């Protein structure tokens, strides 16, 4: 499968493999990290950002593509639906059927509220399903929530909301126990001890995993539980606008059937946005590891009703997206490959960094290595460096790759590459939205009765998320949102429904001289008649 040129480079990688596997590359200093980020990280490419001219974050910068979506027309412009006879009435309306939405649904159901999930595709079609590497929790004797706090807050460049990080790390062990009680399988030894590894930027081995299907194992179990509880799931239905009441509180959503285009009205006492990330916006033209529906919908919905965003200017580029073959271009190669000891090496087979630096630093270092001319070129004009997986079996013994990262083995074997024997060619891929809608510790936004959880919410990860803190985020804050939203719903009397904010936002756009040529939320990317997504 590999080209002649690649095979030449692989010979050098093989020659140095044993030596490279045994070495312990030094960690970068804080100054070195700052420098490599500034010079290489896509977040620092000023020409790729615009300034928001309307809305709660007016005057702040965001990726061009996001600014466009936030400042586009409503899909309901000039065609507002009648709100007087809602098609659905519920206590807690959850928009999004991923890990956060499902966790929220289970907890709100526990609290005795009437819950409904609407989801653009199917329940479980979400980035949670695709999370491979694992989930963090400080539950080993040499670890503590305080240590987890330090890793998370520092790894996020000291920009996160400390109280949200506190909640994330303090409720992590209980979250794992909750999953275990639901029947989620974790990698354990014969005594039941969790088999844990490092992730980039962790100071303790606290990565819990279910092989390299960690998110899939969690998501399919949560989905099964939602179904067992008979919680209504309205699938292939997107939310295209939030509904407010005359008190200025959030009170439902306008829905659209993705197949028929039918417009439906859902009235609710409280709403939880759990719509996930934005990889399919392809910021800066990057490929993405994300799910088909990851188009920042929740940010658009919340922004239009006046909920501010935070850290919307920072995205995570996962260091190891597949760079070759082109059929899997941009697909995620789990960080667990590096957790298990595989190192990144350049065209000459040289190790150029410690592979367990944080993701932003690692991605930047990969980009730098390519800019230095130490890259391997692909036939379609791409480039990358090697992730030398065979080191794993050298370090941990034959059979480790098959047992611990079967999905990766399968993904490459489909194209004739056996990662037990050959390295993988990788390059950074758009992976995660570090920021999101600003929320308090109760997961509520500044808009009354509007909650946000999971990747759509901001403040938990600062300016860079650590591996394993996203699965943890969707569990801890999905449950948190479900509990607080349910409690809130018990006190709510919904007023008269209104969509006045749509016209108000439209006027703001006009006053700012913006004439949108698109509508938002985007809902799905457009790949029709294209060769590359």
């Amino acid at each position, binding site marked *: 499968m590999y080209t002649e040129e690649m095979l030449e480079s692989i010979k050098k990688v093989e020659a140095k493999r044993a030596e490279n596997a045994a070495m312990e590359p030094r*960690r970068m*200093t804080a100054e070195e990290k700052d420098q490599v980020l500034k010079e290489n990280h896509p977040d620092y490419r000023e020409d790729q950002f615009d300034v928001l001219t309307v809305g709660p974050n007016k005057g702040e910068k965001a990726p061009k593509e996001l600014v466009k979506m936030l400042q586009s027309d409503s899909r309901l412009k000039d065609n507002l639906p009648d709100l007087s006879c809602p098609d659905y009435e519920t206590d807690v309306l959850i928009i999004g059927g991923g890990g956060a939405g499902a966790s929220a649904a289970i907890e709100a159901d526990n609290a005795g509220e009437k819950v409904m999930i609407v989801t653009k*595709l*199917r329940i*479980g*079609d979400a980035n949670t*399903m*695709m999370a491979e590497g694992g989930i963090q*929790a400080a*539950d080993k*004797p040499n670890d*503590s*929530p*305080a240590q987890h*706090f*330090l890793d998370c*807050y*520092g790894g996020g460049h*000291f920009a996160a909301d*400390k109280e949200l990080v506190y909640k994330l*790390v*303090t409720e992590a062990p*209980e979250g794992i*126990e909750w999953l*275990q009680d639901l*029947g*989620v*399988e*974790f990698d*354990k030894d014969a*005594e*039941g*001890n*969790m088999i844990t590894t490092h992730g980039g930027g962790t*100071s303790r081995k606290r990565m819990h995993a*279910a*092989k390299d299907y960690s*998110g899939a194992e969690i998501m399919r*179990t949560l989905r099964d*539980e939602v*179904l*067992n509880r008979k919680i209504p799931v309205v699938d*292939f239905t997107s939310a295209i606008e939030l509904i407010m009441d005359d008190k200025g509180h959030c009170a439902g959503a306008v829905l659209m059937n*993705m*197949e028929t285009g039918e417009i439906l009205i859902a009235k609710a006492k409280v709403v939880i946005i759990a719509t996930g990330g934005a990889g399919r916006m392809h910021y800066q033209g990057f490929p993405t590891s994300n*799910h*088909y529906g990851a188009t920042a919908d929740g940010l658009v919905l919340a922004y239009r009703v006046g909920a501010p965003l935070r850290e919307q200017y920072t995205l995570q580029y996962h260091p190891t997206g597949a760079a070759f073959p082109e059929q899997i271009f941009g697909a*995620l190669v789990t960080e667990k490959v590096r957790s298990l000891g595989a190192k990144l090496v350049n065209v000459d087979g040289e190790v150029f960094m410690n592979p367990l630096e944080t993701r932003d630093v690692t991605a930047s270092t990969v980009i730098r290595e390519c800019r230095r001319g130490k890259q391997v070129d692909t036939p379609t004009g791409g480039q990358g460096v090697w992730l030398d997986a065979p080191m794993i079996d050298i370090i941990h013994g034959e059979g480790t790759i098959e047992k611990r990262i079967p*999905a990766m083995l*399968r*993904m490459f074997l*489909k*194209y004739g590459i056996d990662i037990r024997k050959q390295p993988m060619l990788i390059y950074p891929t758009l992976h995660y939205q570090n920021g999101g809608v600003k929320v308090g510790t109760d997961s509520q936004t500044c808009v009354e009765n509007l909650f946000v959880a999971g990747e759509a919410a901001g403040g938990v990860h600062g300016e860079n998320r650590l591996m394993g803190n996203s699965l943890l985020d969707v569990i801890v804050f999905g449950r948190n949102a479900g509990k607080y939203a349910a409690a809130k719903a018990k006190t709510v009397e919904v007023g008269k429904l209104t969509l006045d904010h749509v016209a108000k936002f439209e006027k703001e756009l006009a006053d700012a001289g913006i004439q949108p040529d698109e509508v938002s939320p985007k809902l*799905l990317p457009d*790949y*029709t*008649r*294209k*060769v590359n*997504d």
Partner: protein
Amino acid sequence: MEQMVNVFVMGKKYEVPASLTIMKALEYAGYKLVRGCGCRNGFCGACATIYRIKGDRELHTCLACSTQVVEGMYITQLPFFPLIKEIYDINEVRPDETVMMKNYPEIYSCIGCNACTNACTQGLNVMQYIAYAQRAEYAKCAEESFDCVMCGVCSSRCPAGISHPQVAMLARRLNGKYIEPKCQHLADRVKEIEEGKCEEAIRANMALSDAEIREKYNNREIEK
């Protein structure tokens, strides 16, 4: 010039670049996908696909997102298959012989044709994991079925009407909850947190000045 191949989408011919996956070929041909497309990377099972190569007798199954097109491919998708998903309370069921008999009795009608295994898009030994489920060997069933993406192709080929992915789902939850050993260090830490024993150290970190916490982070000891 890029090499092109002819594929037949539900019988209709389209010329597409030979390098594309089936999913990208559908989009290249002009389809805007809503059904039959999810994670686009082999984890969600949304894009189950059945195909036959012109002139070839064999029927193939795959995930459209992770299979390359070839010349003469006749493609149809299976974006949904009516699996039976029984409702149960995970706290009430037990990993015994009765649970499968009660929820999925059709597994005992398996005729051993192995069509499920031959059809599996993940290359799993499906008939074997059903055999484990029949014998209430749920840990083995869980391990054998672990990589299942629940696409449902196995069930579409089953003469006994078995919903294999749902049988496996139940087996894995039984295994995770009742059979795998409970984690003691996890229970200990949850208790410590509940008793407030972890509070002081974390609050101390939160009270540090920006300069102090940077210093502490940059010099923290990293476990080997």
